[in-house]
């Protein structure tokens, strides 16, 4: 029987171990990548065990930086869910990465695998962080460790994208987020995540919306408009990076942080009683709709998916802003369901690129008949994002709607419905074109069955199945939050 403590150390340590393994075994690509997948599977096993066991109040202090600040880790339900998502998707993403990098003949594969593992380590640390300082430290490490991935190609475009990526994420975090963190430290005298929040009674309610704003816009990784530009900009990176950004770690770390701060720093009761998050509901709703509309206008597949992510992240921020237990549970569940759905979509986009070097949706007419497995998985992922049963996304949307009803936010209900329709339009188009549109003369869509390498196809099938599995075993993933 493993101690909870051991599992926490394992979750934090295994990705680091994998990163060193990558460096040590750089001469032998098969060994290098094989150990990364194995360690990934081990990490996933640990994450599942720990999630199934639940939080038991264990808290580890790794080191005390100053008399009142420490790096410490405290598993709690929300964090364990994020760790579960990151931990389970990591081995799949690694396998996919191997297929993609080799299929597309990318350079600097060792560097890529190294920083990928470091990013997972940072994500795990964010998930398990016991106080805001720890979260902030690893939030920054996640930003810096993903920068070499975003600029992997080293072209002028990649440099520009890297500048936007780093500029927005670092500037927002060191200006607003750190401001918020230190503000909380001064106001509450502590930074520990505590059930029910730590601010009630210590701050004049007038300032609560302002403080919430520092967090909402300081957490650039949540990609709330107008801080979303880094996400589409990062599309120049290889597709495995997009999977990492959109599903496994980066944006999920962002919305996770928003949820965690709302639940464990502000406290749901405190927020709903002061009405301090009303404005955030409006901003998040705007972000949901505006990003969907932009997505419809994009014909580059990855760009469209990127804006779809911006929109979907809005759901989670919205769930936090609604400040009701049901909406918060829905938002937490949406982290998992969106991750499974979106990683499928990106894996498919990457598979299409590796097999046929296509990026533009207009060139993909009829391609579904050549890549039926990829397009089938894409359809499942898309349906989950849209929120159609029997796929996981249906539940999280359902719970968010319930949360909106609880709080008498009828407009929010309409926003959610309209957004689902928009999702249907811009994701459905890709599937329909793939399967039913006649292939244009001279396009690669003419020809025989031609899928991407198996290392790309297997992961996308698995993630598509996870989306279905999420629908039927949703009980396991629903977290209960109180006040």
């Amino acid at each position: 029987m493993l101690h909870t403590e051991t599992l926490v150390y394992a979750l934090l340590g295994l990705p680091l171990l994998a990163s060193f393994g990558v460096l040590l075994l750089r001469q032998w690509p098969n060994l290098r990548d094989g150990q990364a997948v194995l360690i990934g599977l081990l990490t996933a096993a640990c994450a599942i065990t720990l999630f199934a066991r639940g939080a038991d109040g264990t808290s580890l202090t790794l080191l005390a930086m100053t008399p009142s600040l420490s790096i410490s880790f405290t598993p709690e339900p929300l964090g364990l869910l994020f760790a579960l998502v990151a931990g389970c998707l990591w081995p799949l993403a690694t396998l996919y990465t191997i297929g993609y990098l080799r299929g597309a003949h990318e350079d600097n594969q060792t560097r890529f695998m190294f920083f990928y593992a470091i990013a997972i380590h940072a994500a795990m640390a964010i998930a398990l962080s016991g106080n805001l300082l720890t979260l902030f430290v690893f939030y920054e490490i996640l930003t810096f460790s993903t920068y070499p991935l975003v600029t992997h190609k080293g072209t002028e475009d990649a440099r520009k994208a890297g500048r936007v990526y780093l500029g927005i994420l670092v500037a927002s975090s060191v200006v607003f987020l750190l401001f918020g963190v230190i503000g909380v430290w001064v106001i509450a005298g502590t930074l520990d995540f505590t059930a029910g929040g730590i601010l009630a009674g210590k701050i004049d309610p007038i300032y609560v919306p302002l403080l919430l704003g520092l967090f909402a816009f300081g957490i650039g990784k949540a990609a709330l408009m107008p801080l979303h530009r880094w996400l589409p900009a990062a599309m120049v990176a290889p597709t495995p990076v997009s999977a990492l950004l959109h599903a496994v770690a980066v944006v999920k770390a962002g919305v996770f942080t928003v949820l965690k701060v709302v639940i464990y720093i502000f406290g749901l009761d405190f927020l709903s009683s002061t009405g301090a998050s009303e404005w955030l509901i409006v901003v998040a709703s705007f972000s949901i709709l505006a990003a969907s509309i932009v997505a419809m206008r994009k014909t580059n597949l990855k760009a469209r998916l990127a804006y779809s992510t911006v929109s979907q992240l809005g759901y989670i921020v919205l769930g936090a802003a609604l400040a009701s237990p049901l909406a918060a549970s829905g938002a937490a569940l949406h982290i998992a369901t969106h991750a499974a759905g979106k990683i499928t979509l990106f894996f498919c986009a990457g598979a299409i690129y590796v097999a046929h070097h296509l990026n533009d949706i207009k060139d993909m007419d009829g391609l579904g008949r050549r890549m039926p497995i990829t397009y089938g998985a894409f359809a499942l992922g898309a349906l989950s994002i849209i929120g159609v049963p029997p796929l996981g996304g249906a539940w999280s949307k359902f719970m968010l709607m319930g949360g909106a009803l609880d709080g008498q936010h009828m407009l929010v209900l309409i926003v959610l419905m309209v957004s689902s329709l928009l999702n249907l339009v811009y994701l459905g188009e890709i599937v329909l074109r793939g399967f039913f549109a006649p292939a244009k003369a001279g396009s690669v869509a003419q020809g025989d069955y031609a899928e991407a390498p198996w290392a790309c196809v297997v992961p996308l099938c698995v993630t598509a199945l996870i989306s279905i599995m999420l629908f039927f075993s949703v009980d396991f993933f629903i977290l209960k939050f109180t006040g």
Partner: protein
Amino acid sequence: MMQHLPILQVIVPLMAAPLVALLRGREIAWLATFVVTGVAFAISLLLYFQVSESGTRLVYELGGWAAPLGITYVIDAASVLVLPIVTGIGFVVTLAARHLVTAEIDQRDHALFFTAWLLTIAGMLGQVTTGDAFNIFVFLEISSLSAYALVAMGAGRDRRALPAAFNYLILGTVGATFYVIGLGLLYMLTGTLNLDDLAVRLADIEQTRAAYMAMAFIALGLFLKMALFPLHFWLVPAYSFAPSAVSALMAATATKVSVYVLVRLMFGVFGIGFVGISQGLGTVLLTLGIIGAFVGTLAAIIETDLKKLFAQSSIAQLGYMAIGIGIMTPAGLAAAFIHLFNHALMKGALFLAIGVIGAQTGRATMRSIEGAGRQIPMTMTAILFGGLALIGVPLTAGFISKLYLIRALLESDLWILAGLTFISSALALAYVWKIVEAAWLKPRPEGAPDLHETPIMWLPAWLLVVATIGFGIFASPLISGAMQAAMMFFGGQS
């Protein structure tokens, strides 16, 4: 022996300086300097442990003459923070000086170079340890005069070092003169130059105009010496045209010592109760500090010469120290001490790493480091870490600095100033990332000379990088030391 440590701290490098001038061999002059700075570092650590263990201050009476007739040397909670940083940086930079000086200075001048080098270190140590206001002036001149000479030695490679040194000399002398005018007024008013004695006697004549004038003159002189905006124009050319080793030593320590002297005189002598301090100085420092932070950062962003770039960044960082002092609370003063210490480490590391490049290419410019990330990875990584610390990225010393500075601002309800400080520190990302992109994301241009590095070249910079990260993770001793020092200046209460 142990009771003589306070004076040995100063006298060892001071006496060694003329002896080094007599050593004509190049290696032997360096070796002697290296040993002496090592001894000075050891002494400062011993002093640190003595003071922090006993919790009291050490007062050493020179020649056995009691104050106020004799001159005293005082080691207290504040000076034990500054002494190790001056001697420690001095030690590490001397280690690097071996190859930097060989590359940049004419061999005939090596002995003289190391003489001036030891003198400037001795002068700085004297300013920190002495308990006598006029003695401070004497040591200020010792360190400054030798520093002018050191800057001028850059002329062997770039003639522009001469006007830079001359400007530095003129402005430095103006600053020192202001200081001594203020001191003259104080002496006239009180009849004493001993710092403790001055503090006692000033209490009776606080409200006189002459006392205000004295304070203003002293503060202005020291503003010049610490390169506070807008009195910073001497700093950038002086640091950038000086030999690399000199840039590293001065950027890390010289202005810091002036900050320390300012704190010692303003808080330790005039005291927080003095109206000019509580109402005048604070506002001035906050205003000039935040403007300096922006001006320095923006100038650094457009700069293409690495030495100038980081010299401009020093202006910004001194601005943060000024803000910390200007808050006029123990927390603010502690934040200033913390940043003083941490910034010395990061800037030392940065200038040493730049020295590795400068020694090979003449001047380290954005162009000369294009694609350098693969040729000299250790050196460029040192610059990366130093830069991250300047931005204030977590797990570096810069993060701790920022954390405590902002906290002090918020505790005093200076929300807007806190916001501005955040913005200016985030802008630092722009100039740091410019370097990262050039070094790692651009290919080495055709025909650019190959750069190389050996462990002996990057080791000194890395020693300071490790210290920067170490103090970013294990910050407790520094923070409690700084708090203790700040409390001392606020009369023991918060």
